[in-house]
């Protein structure tokens, strides 16, 4: 057995957006808008449309249009409630991006892929007139509206660094920061290594859609195929754990079986909770995953 190698630095700690990222964003925004209009024409509800689908009630706030008051409910319960529609619930989107150390793995890096996804979702939301928020780490959320420059978003994405601060994982963010009540769409992007489905429970709301976009590095998904039998000594990027450097033979198969069971668990848990979920490698183009996340339901 060879000598134990040194624990390597994070291979992709930063965000390196592709040069044509903005152009691809604009094209995606147009495509998504067109799709939304087509769906509306067919009478289908859509996050990006102006659907009047009833999804629940909320207390009446002073100064609101009285036409939206639910008079029947007022008569029955003697309390003022407003009917909530899907369009209203979707007026604010929150994107939670994992910037923990494990996101600095992969080629391209998971954080890089996650940032591209987050930027794309926010750009689509801004185009649809939605107020979008980007929450990562301990700092304040970045909030943008339609008409604001994409440059602010791009710059914020470029400033992200994996492992740069404690509490940058989704579970840590969600435990200390909850999406505002008016948020109709919560998108969580990360590798979800420390996240559990029950961590999401406190943030479920009537009329709020939650979408989980899981990003894993190619070698995390299929280490046996990616490494071609190379002897690898594995290190945990966020802790002291390690595995000795043997060829990924049978161990890789065991790993892949366990990983598959874990991903199936995520699929079951999110489906039973009415959440959207998808997993993809960090080298999957963001267009494919954004469309799936915003169109699903």
């Amino acid at each position: 057995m060879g000598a134990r190698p040194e624990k390597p630095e994070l291979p992709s700690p930063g965000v390196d957006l592709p040069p044509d990222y903005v152009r691809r964003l604009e094209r995606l925004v147009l495509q998504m808008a067109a799709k939304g209009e087509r769906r509306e024409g067919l009478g289908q509800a859509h996050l990006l449309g102006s659907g009047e689908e009833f999804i629940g009630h909320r207390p009446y706030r002073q100064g609101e249009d009285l036409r939206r008051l639910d008079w029947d409910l007022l008569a029955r319960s003697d309390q003022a409630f407003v009917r909530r529609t899907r369009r209203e619930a979707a007026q604010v989107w929150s994107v939670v991006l994992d910037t923990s150390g494990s996101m600095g793995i992969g080629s391209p890096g998971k954080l890089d892929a996650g940032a591209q996804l987050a930027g794309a979702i926010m750009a689509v939301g801004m185009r649809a007139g939605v107020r979008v928020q980007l929450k990562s780490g301990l700092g304040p959320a970045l909030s943008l509206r339609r008409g604001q420059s994409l440059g602010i978003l791009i710059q914020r994405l470029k400033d992200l660094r994996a492992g740069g601060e404690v509490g940058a994982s989704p579970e840590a963010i969600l435990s200390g920061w909850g999406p505002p009540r008016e948020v109709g769409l919560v998108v969580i992007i990360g590798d979800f290594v420390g996240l559990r489905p029950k961590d999401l429970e406190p943030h479920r709301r009537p009329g709020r859609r939650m979408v989980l976009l899981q990003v894993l590095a190619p070698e995390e998904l299929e280490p046996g195929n990616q490494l071609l039998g190379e002897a690898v000594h594995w290190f945990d990027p966020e802790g002291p754990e390690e595995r000795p450097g043997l060829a990924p033979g049978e161990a890789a198969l065991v790993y892949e079986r366990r990983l598959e069971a874990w991903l199936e668990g995520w699929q079951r848990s999110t489906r039973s909770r009415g959440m959207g979920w998808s997993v993809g490698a960090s080298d999957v183009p963001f267009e494919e995953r954004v469309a799936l996340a915003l169109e699903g339901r």
Partner: protein
Amino acid sequence: MLVWERPWALWLLAFLGVVLWRSLQRGAPIGRLLGTLEFWPREKVAGEERRRGIPPARWALVCAMGAAVLGMAGPAWQGEATDSPWRVIVDRSPSMGLASGSEGSRLGVALELLDSALDRGAARIFVAGDASTIEHRGERPPEDWESSVPRPEPDWARFDQPRTIWLTDRMSGHAPVHACVVASGGDAVPGVVALDGQHELFFDGIASRLRPSGQGPQGVEVRGPAASQIAALARIWVESRGHRLTDEQPALLITCAMGPVAGAPEVQQIEQDGWSLQGHLIHPAEGRPWAWAQPSGLPAVAWSPGFVDVQLLELGPPSGDLGGLARSFGDLFDRALVPTGDVIALGERGAVGAGGVSGTFEGGAAARLGQDQRLPRILLAGLATCLGLLALILSRRSPL
């Protein structure tokens, strides 16, 4: 010792060493980060001990190249050739002890020539040509191998083998196929060539002449049954030669077989020079065979200097040419009688011409060396081919 014809080619092994070293470096585990490390098994998994290391195909290819490089360097087992000793067959007949001018005996001159023909360090085994079981390993044969004892000349044809040297005094008459010849040469050496109780035959270098002997008679003992015709003939020979019969330290002991004969042995017969003799063979005669018994094919009469051994228990008188019988046994007794002083047969004292050396003294070694050179190369070439094919096969299963 392994020697190389082109040792510079061995430097290519260093190149292969670098390739292997680099491969081992590549085979060492690399450090990688894995966010989902919790799913990687902590415990050992069956089959996990297989270490990446160098791919088998690359091992095979590097070994094939190594074998090819070694073959290209031209290996040869030089030690085997040089360590294989030369067998020097020594002519121990009396002529080898004769002086050869002022340079010492013919044997001494022949040994000097041998030294000049062979490498000083070449291993030698001296073999007595008249008794091949007597061997001596060293630079020089034992001193007593040079004597006037009438030992016969070697049966040279028996010793015509590679890496063999005939050490004698004359070149003429020797045309070996494999063996080499070292001959001292020598002029005629005057001296007494025969002797009896009254006269001696003196050879002056050109001719022989009879002259009165200054020595007294020699003692001869004859043992045998009273009825033995051979024993009677021996006594007559003693008397005619002017020797005396004695049983105290005889110069020649003649033994004729005495009974009884066990069982009903087959009748044997010996024939020489027109006469024949029948009898029972008691034991094979000991010494240098002179007459063979038929049909057994065992020696019936043998001799060595100072001894004549007749093991045929005679059945009746000899038949055929009885004069020839007396002459044959007389010559045998003359030959076996240990001479006194410098009595050496005329055939030994004659001139033998110029000496010299013939044969290829490196030939045997070179031939063997050639074989030795070819063998490692053939083996290495075969090995390189096999390993190359193995690498080709293995490369289809795993990356090279």
